C-alpha cells in the first residue's frame, strides 16, 4: 500500500493521550490534534472514542 511507503512519523500526542489510545487500541494517526502545533490532547482522543462508540454502539466488542 502507498500508506506504508509514506508512513507518517509518529504523531505528536501528550503522554495521557498516548496512554488512552493504547488502552483502546486506537491509531493516533486517525486523530487530529488540537494542542499547540497540532499535538493530540486527551480531549481529542476522548472525543474520537465517543464518536467511535456512538457509531459502533450496537455490536461493540471489548478491545
Amino acid at each position, binding site marked *: 500500500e502507498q500508506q506504508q511507503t509514506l508512513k507518517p512519523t509518529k504523531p505528536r500526542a*501528550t*503522554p495521557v493521550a498516548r*496512554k488512552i489510545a493504547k488502552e483502546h487500541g486506537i491509531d493516533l494517526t486517525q486523530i487530529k490534534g488540537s494542542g499547540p502545533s497540532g499535538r493530540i*490532547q486527551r480531549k481529542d482522543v476522548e472525543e474520537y472514542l465517543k464518536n467511535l462508540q456512538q457509531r459502533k454502539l450496537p455490536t461493540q466488542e471489548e478491545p
Partner: protein
Amino acid sequence: MDYDVIVLGGGPGGYTAAIRLSELGKKVAVVEEDSLGGTCLNRGCIPTKVYSHATELINAIKDAKDFGIMAQYTVDIVKLRQKKERVVKRLVGGVGYLMNLHHVDVIKGRGRFVDENTIEVDKRYTAENFIIATGSKVFLPPIEGINLEGVITSDKALELERIPEKIVIIGAGIIGLEFANIYSALGSKVVIIEMLPQLLPMLDRDIADTMEKILRHKKIELHLSSKVEKIEEGLKVVYTTEGNTQVVECDTVLVAVGRVANVNGIEALNLDMDKKGIKVDSHMKTSIKNIYAIGDVTGGIQLAHVASYQGIVAAHNIAGEEKEADLNAVPNCLYTSPEIAWVGLNEVQAREKFGDVKIGTFPYTALGRAMTMGQNDGFVKIIAEAKYNRVVGMEIIGAGATEIIHEGVLAVKEEFTLEELADAIHAHPTLSESVKEAAEDALGMPINKG
C-alpha cells in the same frame, strides 16, 4: 481610523498585548495615565520581590553561622528603598524602550471611551479594536478608623521609610503573608489577623499547616477566624475571635484584604459586567464585538502572568487567529521564606473531581541539595488522578518552590502521567529532584523517601 488597536492601560497585560499585536502587523497605541508596567512593576510584583530578596539575604547572613561564616549586619532602610527604586526605574524604562522598538505609540493620560471606536485622552483617537487592561486597585474595607494615620496599604508599605516596631497586618492572603515575611525579617513584631479559619484555603491542609508552623517559629502572631471591628487612634486594632473581643496595640496597620477591578473610563460602553469586573469569554472578548478585556480588570485570577497571557490570547484573536485561554496550568507563587508555589488542583479538589487519586510527597529533609543549603523545611506534593496517573496538580513549600513549580506547570499543561516525571532524569543534587521523588512515591516506588 487612527489605529488598528488601542490598549487602555500599560500594565503587564496591556504592554504585552501591544508588543504581540505589533509583531502580528498591527498599528497599536497604549494609553497609560501613570507609569508603564502598571501595578506589577511599580507597586506590585517587582518592588515586593526586591524586599523579599533582601529578607533572603538577611536570612542567609543569619544562617551562614552554621557554615562557619560569621557575619554581622545592619540594615539601611533608605538604601534598600533606593535599590527598589533603581530596579523599578530600570524595568519601567525597559518597557518604554520596548514600546519604541515595536513602534507602539504611548499616549499619556487617562483614557475614557466615547463610543465603541473612539477613546478620549488628550484628544480623541479612533481604532478598529480595543483592549481594556486597566487592572485593579487596593480594596479598602469599610472599617472604622481605616483612614487613620499609620494605617497603610501595600502601595505605602513599599515606600518603607522606617521599620515599624509592631505592625498588624489585616488579611493573610498572598500580599499579607509576603509583607509579614518581609517586616518580620527586618525586625518588626508582626501580628496577622485573618477572617478565614485556614491560612491559604486554596491549598491543602498539610501545606497550610507547615506554613503556620513556620510563621509561629518566626514569632509571627497569627489570629485566624478573626474579624477586625475597628481601628482606634493610638493605634489600637480591635478584633473579635469567636465572640471574644481583643485589642492589639501597634504603630502600623497594613490593610491587605484584596484588590478590586479598576473599572473606569468605560461608562459610555455599557459592557456586560459582574460583581468582580468586566465579563469576558475564553477568547478575552467582552460583550462588544471589537472590545477585549484582559488581566485584573476582568476580576479573574489576579496575577501578572495571567494578565500577560491573556494579552497574548487577545492579540492573536484580534489578528484573526483562533486562540482560547487555557487556565488549567497557572502557577501561583508566594515569596515567603520558604517559598510556596502550586498549580492545578489540590488534593481535595482532585478527589472531588476524580474520586480516586494518587498522592506522592517528598520532604526536603531527605533532599541532598536542600541539606547542602541548610534549607530543611518543606516538601513537594504531587496529585494525580488514579485511572491514567495523569498529573493534575502540584503543591510545593520549600526553597526554590517558585522555580521548580514549573515542572508541575508543564506536566499539567502537557498532560503528563506520573511515569513521565518519574522517568525524567533529574540532575543531582538539585531541589528539582524532589519532583521526581514525589512522582515515584505516588507510583508506590519511592527511592530516597523513608
